[in-house]
């Protein structure tokens, strides 16, 4: 809700704040990454964060620990093993069948107890529904600072975490510190950081930690889990190719042109915020500051003007192709390739051209 409402001019004492770490926080050492698993599946944002965590730990000259919380059994063991392949020096494990599904009460207890016992200086979590639910509760319990949705994590000259995040929908960036409290906590959205290389390694040091809760202690019960019928929506962030449409498409009917192109390319499709607000496309397809961050090899934006809040979500794309009638649209400031034309007319032609191109490719392949 409120990172400071007035970014600048800053009140006296804010930018000038000094690091005067209280004595009892000086024992806090090492970088931790929370490994998020749900129903036996580790969210890739955990490995992306291991990449950032490794860099921070190396700069600080400390260890990188993976924190794995989940049920007893194979899935948790596999997550621990995998965390070593992504650079963990050690893993803290809280394994208990009470933790089979995510619930705020049990996970908050597990993580706060771990922090209070083993005292990390930095704790990173994914800014997912699970990560945000957990991080907010844990930071409040620990009475420490938490910076949401960071796009950059650095260590400065006096070994403090400098966490940079967009604010006001991406119009400005703020660099935020938690100078005198520990741990320094931050969340990062999926796909903001690149995926580190996976190196096959045997399991290293594992520190088991008890949960100290039984099922009867937990008020909230899970009655059912209904998996999304449309699996693709959760893949948008991880798709190699994304086609998206914006207001330039002029009508909800024209949005199918985006879907058709995506279909031919085997791509995912998305949209800019106004289309969700108009009810043309469902919210889980929204790309940008309040939607999903994407990192595809190819991003085709059709009829999207490219407001700053959209840019925040697509900046990690390897190649951005923008189609827009307005040659002054802001998207042309951050796209790589521009076609100044009407997307409504171009999209069907592009779909057809790609169809031909890719099927010709098939013929060549068979012939060779």
């Amino acid at each position: 809700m409120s990172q400071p409402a007035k970014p600048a001019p800053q009140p006296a004492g804010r930018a000038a704040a000094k690091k005067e770490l209280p004595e009892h926080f000086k024992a806090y050492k090492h970088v931790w990454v929370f490994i998020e698993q749900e129903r036996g599946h580790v969210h890739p944002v955990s490995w992306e964060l291991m990449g950032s965590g490794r860099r921070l730990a190396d700069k600080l000259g400390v260890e990188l620990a993976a924190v794995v919380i989940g049920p007893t059994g194979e899935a948790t063991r596999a997550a621990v093993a995998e965390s070593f392949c992504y650079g963990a020096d050690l893993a803290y494990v809280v394994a208990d069948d009470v933790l089979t599904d995510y619930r705020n009460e049990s996970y908050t207890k597990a993580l706060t107890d771990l922090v209070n016992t083993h005292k990390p200086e930095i704790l990173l979590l994914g800014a997912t529904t699970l990560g945000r639910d957990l991080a907010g509760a844990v930071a409040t319990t620990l009475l420490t600072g938490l910076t949401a949705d960071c796009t950059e994590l650095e260590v400065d000259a006096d070994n403090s975490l400098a966490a940079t995040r967009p604010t006001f929908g991406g119009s400005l960036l703020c660099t935020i510190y938690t100078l005198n409290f520990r741990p320094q906590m931050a969340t990062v959205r999926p796909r903001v950081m690149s995926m580190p290389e996976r190196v096959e390694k045997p399991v290293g040091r594992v520190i088991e930690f008890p949960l100290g809760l039984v099922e009867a202690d937990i008020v909230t019960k899970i009655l059912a889990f209904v998996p999304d019928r449309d699996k693709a929506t959760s893949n948008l962030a991880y798709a190699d190719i994304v086609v998206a449409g914006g207001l330039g498409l002029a009508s909800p009917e024209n949005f199918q042109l985006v879907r058709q192109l995506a279909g031919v390319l085997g791509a995912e499709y998305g949209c800019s915020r106004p289309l969700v607000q108009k009810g043309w496309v469902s919210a889980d397809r929204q790309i940008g500051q309040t939607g999903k961050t994407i990192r595809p090899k190819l991003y085709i934006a059709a009829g999207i003007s490219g407001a700053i809040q959209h840019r925040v979500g697509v900046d990690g794309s390897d190649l951005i192709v923008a189609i827009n009638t307005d040659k002054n649209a802001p998207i042309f400031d951050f796209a790589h390739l521009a076609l100044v034309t009407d997307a409504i007319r171009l999209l069907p032609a592009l779909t057809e051209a790609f169809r031909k191109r890719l099927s010709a490719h098939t013929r060549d392949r068979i012939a060779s």
Partner: protein
Amino acid sequence: MHIVVCIKQVPDSAQIRVHPVTNTIMRQGVPTIINPYDLFALEEALRLRDKFGGEVTVLTMGPPTAEDSLRKALTIGANRAVLLTDRFFAGSDTLATSYALAAAIRKIGSTFGAVDVVFTGKQTIDGDTAQVGPGICKRLDFLQLTYVSKVSSLDLEARTIEVERRSEGGVQVLRSNLPCLITMLEGTNQVRRGSMINALNAARAEVVKWSAQDAGVEDIQKCGLRGSPTVVKRVFAPTPRAEKAKVVEAAGQPPAEALIDEIFKLRPKLENEMFELARGF
């Protein structure tokens, strides 16, 4: 039943302009709105009240001008509005904000009747952190239910509540107890329009204005800048990309063809990758 809905007055972010030299938000003439996600929270609260009886109190922490948003919420149908405003709150981060709001909610409970549910939007459009809801919840020691799309049932006798909650890859159906704090997802309900009668009443209504002291804030050191563990050291505008987009010139061939040529020229590997991907469909 007594429900508190936390709302925030925010600048309409679609119209935010940043001063190119000073990197400050130019607020002059930027209209303020009720944070859109909070409207879904308000609507869900009003639906529960309509079904089970009781009252809805809206609460905001902000400058005195935030009273406008509270009056809008009264027009939409809230019974009572509380404005928490004090210079001691200036510069609050999420931890300090949740401290002040939790104190005010306790005070609302002791003044107007025990609070069963607190609603907030999932996040605001200016701060975008989604941290204040969980923060308030922990401080009140309520049960935390975030990213809720629907309150499916409520039993005031048994003090139980069932909700549908968005999680990664699906929806969790949860049963929990009152008192709880719920953060609402967008698009969950059609938000009602205020009636004429509500608008007239809202214009005449007394908005309760509390300072930190009035709200029973115990430790002023935990408010505002002083109570905020996070420190904003630097504010800057995103760096523009070094070069503008290359404009595709369709010389003698259809523009779609020219575009594809250009894509594969820039990223030669993409052609094979796209073929593999397309074959899967």
